[in-house]
């Protein structure tokens, strides 16, 4: 490896560049760069200049990911993070990776430059996270902990920011978000770790479990600050710094199926000194929600990185491996799998970048509001869109990662089951993505409201405004899908037993994902003829899948409807 541009592999591929170029960041960048009014050697003066720099920075990190990180991923997986005498150590290759990414300046992607960050849009940073994850999925869990720094930046005091952020940006400091406990996983309202105030000093006491990189220097800890309270409103957020206090110990690390490079820790706080972040009692309802949304987006990018790696490995193997006298890529059963992967990856990438853009808008209005501008209405609108697209992306991309890794092994055949090829690792690494930061089932819960409230269908009226001369049929078809979807949603809503809607919610969210991706892809394929073949394939697959999902809703409706509990009761007869 070297910093030389002689490396030909680069994860910043023409495809990634293409889909990024479909996202219009004009408003975002103008706001991030203060309307291009700054001067000085690191001030950007136009959107074009910013794009030039983003492009260079993306190419550079694409080089690092393809030529430095990817070749080390196998060793990281094999050695993993280790735990001895209370001390957690990253694998040597993980340390090197973090050092290189830190030195090259990528640890503070979206943080302001005054702390050493790059001040980039979330969308550009998401593309970086995607490439890092393609290089080594477990590295993203450490790299992506920038979300912690972002949370400190948004809600911390000036003094906390000055103390913590520069270290994050340079890569000298790493962090963790200590939220979950043995009895509080998906349900964070059940958190019991105590925060006790004595003479103006806060102390943390209790246990946290499943904490990614809990051994890091800085932890954001969700704790019960209101003694005797129950539920989310008794929780506050605390900043714990290991270099200032030593009363937190790592009890153990977990042995996991995948992402071996990232240590998952159990932490015990013994009256450890900490500082309150932001306002008391806002811990879960405001700060964790913000943190979690950021993390969900990051995990979606991680999933896409794994899916891309799976596809690349599978297509390469299918091009090399010969059976029955020809390369296996020529067998319809094989190229069908590859084509499905490709169509899902490309349409989902557009969804991911569009989601990032929504988050960028949300952040922008938050900054504007902070400056005292009256942006209430657009801020609300941006929030609603980001709050829908974030779970929709995580739902779509993390399931895709699993499917892509599964098929990549299938294409490798028996060899893929062995440790000799990366697909086996990718399969294990993919498995966590649809679990942590909210399972797929919880993403459905987060996304379904926008569909049943009718807001989704209001947004979809925009389809009529899409210019589609070459693809007028596709547009008509999409309008028809939306109408059918609206109709079935209405029917499902009419069932009074609310369990029924929850029962079919997964189907409905999947239909929404397909329709939204068609909605995003249609204008792209209209403008770029080279994407039409892929879009045609995706449309066919979509139509079949939507038929299937709607049919499932209909059958469940017809068979159970109000009596959906019968199904459960039948199960409980034997298993309670």
């Amino acid at each position, binding site marked *: 490896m070297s910093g*030389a541009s*002689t490396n030909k592999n680069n994860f910043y591929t023409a495809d990634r560049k293409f889909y990024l170029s479909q996202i219009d960041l004009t408003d975002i960048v103008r706001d991030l760069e203060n309307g291009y009014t700054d001067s000085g*050697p690191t001030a950007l003066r136009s959107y074009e200049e910013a794009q030039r720099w983003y492009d260079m920075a993306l190419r*550079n*990190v694409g080089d*690092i990911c393809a030529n430095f990180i990817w070749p080390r991923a196998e060793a990281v997986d094999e050695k993993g993070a280790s735990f001895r005498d209370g001390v957690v150590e990253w694998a040597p290759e993980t340390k090197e990776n973090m050092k290189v990414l830190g030195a090259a*300046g990528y640890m503070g992607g979206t943080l302001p430059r005054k702390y050493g960050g790059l001040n980039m849009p979330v969308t550009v940073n998401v593309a970086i996270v995607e490439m890092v994850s393609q290089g080594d999925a477990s590295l993203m869990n450490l790299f992506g902990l920038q979300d912690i720094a972002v949370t400190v930046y948004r809600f911390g005091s000036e003094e906390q920011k000055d103390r913590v952020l520069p270290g994050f940006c340079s890569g000298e400091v790493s962090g963790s978000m200590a939220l979950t406990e043995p009895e509080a996983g998906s349900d964070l309202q059940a958190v019991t770790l105590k925060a006790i105030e004595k003479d103006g000093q806060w102390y943390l006491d209790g246990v946290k479990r499943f904490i990614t990189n809990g051994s890091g220097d800085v932890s954001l800890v969700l704790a019960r600050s209101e003694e005797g309270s129950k539920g989310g409103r008794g929780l506050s957020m605390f900043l714990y710094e290991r270099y200032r206090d030593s009363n937190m110990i790592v009890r153990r690390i977990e042995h996991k199926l995948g992402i071996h490079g990232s240590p998952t820790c159990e932490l015990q706080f013994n009256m450890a000194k900490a500082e309150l972040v932001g306002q008391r009692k806002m811990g879960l309802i405001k700060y964790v929600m913000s943190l979690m949304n950021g993390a969900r987006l990051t995990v979606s990018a991680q999933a896409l990185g794994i899916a891309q790696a799976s596809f690349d490995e599978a297509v390469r193997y299918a091009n090399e491996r010969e059976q029955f006298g020809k390369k296996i890529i020529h067998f319809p059963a094989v190229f069908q799998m590859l084509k499905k992967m490709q169509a899902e990856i490309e349409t989902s990438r557009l969804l991911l970048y569009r989601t990032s853009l929504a988050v960028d808008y949300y952040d922008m209005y938050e900054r504007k509001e902070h400056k005292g501008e009256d942006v209430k209405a657009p801020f609300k609108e941006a929030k609603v869109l980001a709050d829908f697209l974030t779970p929709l992306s995580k739902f779509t991309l993390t399931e895709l990662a699993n499917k892509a890794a599964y098929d990549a092994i299938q294409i490798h055949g028996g060899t893929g089951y062995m440790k000799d090829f990366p697909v086996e690792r990718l399969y294990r690494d993919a498995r966590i993505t649809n679990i942590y930061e909210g399972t797929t089932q919880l993403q459905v819960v987060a996304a379904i409201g926008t569909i049943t409230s009718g807001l989704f269908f209001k947004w979809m009226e925009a389809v009529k405004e899409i210019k589609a001369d070459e693809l007028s049929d596709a547009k008509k078809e999409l309008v028809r899908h939306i109408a059918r979807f609206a109709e079935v949603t209405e029917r499902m809503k009419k069932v009074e037993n609310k369990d029924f809607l929850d029962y079919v919610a997964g189907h409905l969210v999947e239909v929404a994902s397909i329709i939204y991706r068609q909605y995003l892809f249609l204008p792209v394929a209209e403008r770029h003829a080279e994407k039409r073949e892929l879009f045609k394939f995706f449309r066919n697959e979509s139509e079949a899948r939507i038929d299937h999902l709607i049919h499932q809703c209909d059958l469940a409706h017809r068979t159970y409807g109000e009596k959906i509990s019968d199904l459960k009761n039948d199960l409980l007869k034997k298993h309670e």
Partner: protein
Amino acid sequence: MSKIVVLAKQVPDTSNIRGNAMKEDGTVNRAALPTVFNPEDLNALETALEIKDRTGREVILLTMGPLKAVEIIKQALYMGADAGYLLTDKKFAGSDTWATSYILAEAIKKIGGVDLVVAGRQAIDGDTAQVGPQVAEKLGFDQVTYVTALNEVTDTTVTVERDGEFQTEVIRARFPLLLTVTSAANTPRYPSARQMLRYFKADIKENIPAEERAEYERNGWIIPTLTFADIPGINEAHIGLKGSPTKVNAIRDIAVQGGDLKMYDPRLDGVKALVRDLMKQYVEVQS
């Protein structure tokens, strides 16, 4: 604190040759080849940057070439160099290693305050490994070639490892000094996104619109060029094609064939015989 100068060259990317890399007359078709930072010069730059990390010394990249060679200066800035100079002049064109090292040495004197020069062992286009050592001779600096590791750095000395044929030599050398570095010495760092932001607009003055020059000047985005006229006391007779004792008469493809093994006595007479035989077989002397 004295400055460190890194000598670097932009070269055709010989690891990436496709299609019409050679012209019909047997010379390299530079237009058809992508160009890169000469790989071992990156190791030289990394060595200098490591010394900078430890001592805070200023690192300056010096390269001679066409205007396009400004690209490698920018790359060096992205990696952490503090400044770069582009030596460029029609009068320099056609210089062989002797004339090149003369120009480089004069430019280093012009930059001033330099007591350490670091160069790559050799360039992948010429493979001579001559320029570094000749620069040292012309500056009157001590030199350590084939450096494979950087150990200790003090205010007055540097300790390095050097590749010998059968052993590794550990050498402590005093400044002023020139090192030539091999690819074994280190792993060059990646460019930094922050430095890219700092310097991506940097260019030579000629390429900057007049109305923007003041801003470029203020922000340190102008990469200085050094022409013949900028170097006081440089002797025109010693540079360019005219000043180059090496003349390329013709380039031919030679397929070397293995023949009978011939033994020479490993003493002076034997070596003389070997040189004589080599001259007879492979060297054409033009009168």
